[in-house]
């Protein structure tokens, strides 16, 4: 039983990171139909910047903040310079574009920080054991923050007027514009939110899971799988998808074969896409003519 508990906890923790990245995917896709493959790199970059800042004497909270702010600025820049200028953006096109950007980003991180992975200092807290399960305080930080963030972001998207306006842009861009909503600004805001989410993910993950120039790839892909589980447009779905994916990965690694861990996300992806293209956690949408 303690094994199950241990595996569940580990799965929830890494799942929390996936969830944050996944919500970043959903945040952008729900507004503009753009699939932003640099989402993983946001997390990696935030971690690396925070580590450098912290290594240069900045106190931990400030270093973390610096990492997050850097990534938000980057996200806004990407939207402005790369995404916005394209007149007829399709999701497929956005994949290739952001793939190019993420490749360049990765290599830049390699250039600046070198190939080794590093960890940020952990957030304050003591590790303890409860019911035979070793609990790292960092796990609790990750879970706690991701839950709070998920609630905040989904509240924003679903309950506030601004959030609803953002979502309107993806469904009916012309009508939204007629209603006075600036689609361009909506896209910009959504990228900023995605950057924020990615940055938080990176800073939280770094103490436990390490940041390296190429840690963004796996994180981004798994975050995408999690977002797809949730239907790609739902913040809540992405959050749940992230946790589910993390737990499934951990259980498969623990009970079946540790070597299969990285394949889990993609097997899940393919199964979900073939069986329920609109996402597992999404309610059935009536077919449109």
């Amino acid at each position, binding site marked *: 039983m303690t*094994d199950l508990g*241990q*595996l569940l*906890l*580990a799965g929830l923790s*890494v799942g929390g990171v996936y969830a944050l990245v996944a919500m970043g995917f959903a945040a952008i896709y729900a507004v503009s139909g753009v699939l932003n493959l640099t989402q993983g790199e946001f997390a990696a970059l935030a971690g690396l910047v925070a580590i450098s800042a912290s290594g240069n004497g900045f106190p931990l909270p400030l270093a973390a903040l610096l990492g997050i702010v850097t990534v938000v600025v980057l996200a806004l820049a990407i939207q402005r310079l790369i995404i916005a200028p394209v007149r007829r953006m399709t999701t497929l096109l956005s994949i290739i574009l952001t793939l190019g950007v993420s490749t360049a980003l990765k290599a830049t991180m*390699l250039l600046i920080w*070198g*190939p*080794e*992975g590093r*960890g940020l200092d952990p957030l304050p807290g003591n*590790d303890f*054991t409860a019911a035979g399960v*070793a609990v*790292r305080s960092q796990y609790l930080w990750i879970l706690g923050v991701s839950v709070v963030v998920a609630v905040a972001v989904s509240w924003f998207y679903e309950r506030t007027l601004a959030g609803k306006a953002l979502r309107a842009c993806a469904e009916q861009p012309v009508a939204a514009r007629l209603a006075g909503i600036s689609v361009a600004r909506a896209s910009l805001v959504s990228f900023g939110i995605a950057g924020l989410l990615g940055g938080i993910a990176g800073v939280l993950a770094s103490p*436990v*899971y*390490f940041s*390296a120039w*190429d*840690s963004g790839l796996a994180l981004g892909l798994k975050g995408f799988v999690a977002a797809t589980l949730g239907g790609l447009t739902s913040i809540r779905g992405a959050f749940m998808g992230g946790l589910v994916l993390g737990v499934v990965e*951990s259980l498969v*690694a*623990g009970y079946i*074969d*540790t*070597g299969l*861990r*990285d394949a889990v996300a993609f097997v899940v992806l393919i199964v979900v896409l073939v069986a329920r293209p609109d996402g597992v956690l999404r309610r059935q949408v009536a077919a449109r003519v």
Partner: protein
Amino acid sequence: MAGIRALGAAAAVAALLVATAGCAEKDTGGGTDESGPIAVGAILDITGAGASLGVPERKTLELLTKKLNDAGGINGRKLELTVEDNQSTEDGAAKAMNQMVSKKVDLVIGASRTGTSLAMRAIAETNELPMLSMAANVKVVDGAKWVFKTAQNDSAVLANVVDYAKSKGWKTIGLARDSSAFGEGVAETLNSLGKADGISVVATEKFAPDATEFTAQMVNLRNAKADANLIWGIPPAAALAQKTYKQLGITAPVMQSHGIGNQVFLDTAGPAADGLIAPVGRLVVADQLPANDPQKSVLTTFVNNYKAAYNETPSTFAGHAWDAFQLAVDAFKAVGTDKQKVRDHLEQVKGFVGITGVFTMTPQDHSGLGKEALVLVTVSGSKWQLAPA
């Protein structure tokens, strides 16, 4: 829109110019003539998964080249070192090897790891080019005529593990190994070496070389309840695995591989490293060796030189590179640059005192190191210490 098109065209032209820079005829120097500089190529895993090996190896080779040339070279000839990065990929290694061949180098040092070395091996054999690899797996030299290696074979390392287990009365071992070529065959070798003493592997867990999550593996090891556990990997994975091992409260003694013999491991594992046992090359405990140890003076000199140049202690991988370089220099000094003669000389090396150990090569054994090349160390207070017997 025309402006954008023009920009695109200009960018295309610029890219073309950069590409032609790559077409610039690469210098062909060295060769089999007996005058002029000696060309040595080094193909290392500098970026990618093998970076923690390749970077110190490059540093060592560059340091030694400088020292050698400052001291007058070999019989008046300078040594020209060309370092290439294979990016820890097989085609990177093969590409670089082909280029070394067309550059007509006299000898190649590389690669840092098994997979990349294997990619180079076929080319070395076909082109009859002496090659000194720093990879761990014996597959690299098994049956080869032109390839030698300076890192200990897994069997040498594992023989130490078996001896230690036997001395402690352990019968069952749990294994968590790196899923790359570094960790392959460990369970099988351990089982065959330990058979005579009734020691066997009761659980095998795998982790990716870049893994950061080890809960599943350690939970399974905990459940296997082996007498002792062996973590076989390189940092940071090995260090993070060590941390998880301790965090889960596993009380059984833990051993590590020779891959952890560097400061990165200690820094990453922190206090969790205390108490582990690992067979490593004597380099990390050079200062604790008795005065009559044959390797002591070579080790101490190397450590001091490296520290003076790079302000950090050299890792065991740096040591492998030192051995490769000095073996090559030794051969060049003795027989010149004729490739066949160099190869033959290397095959007959006896009692060569290196960093990784004392080398004695034979036609059947192109590794030249036995289990005596390693000592058992432990970690105490985040420092390496010779293990109590």
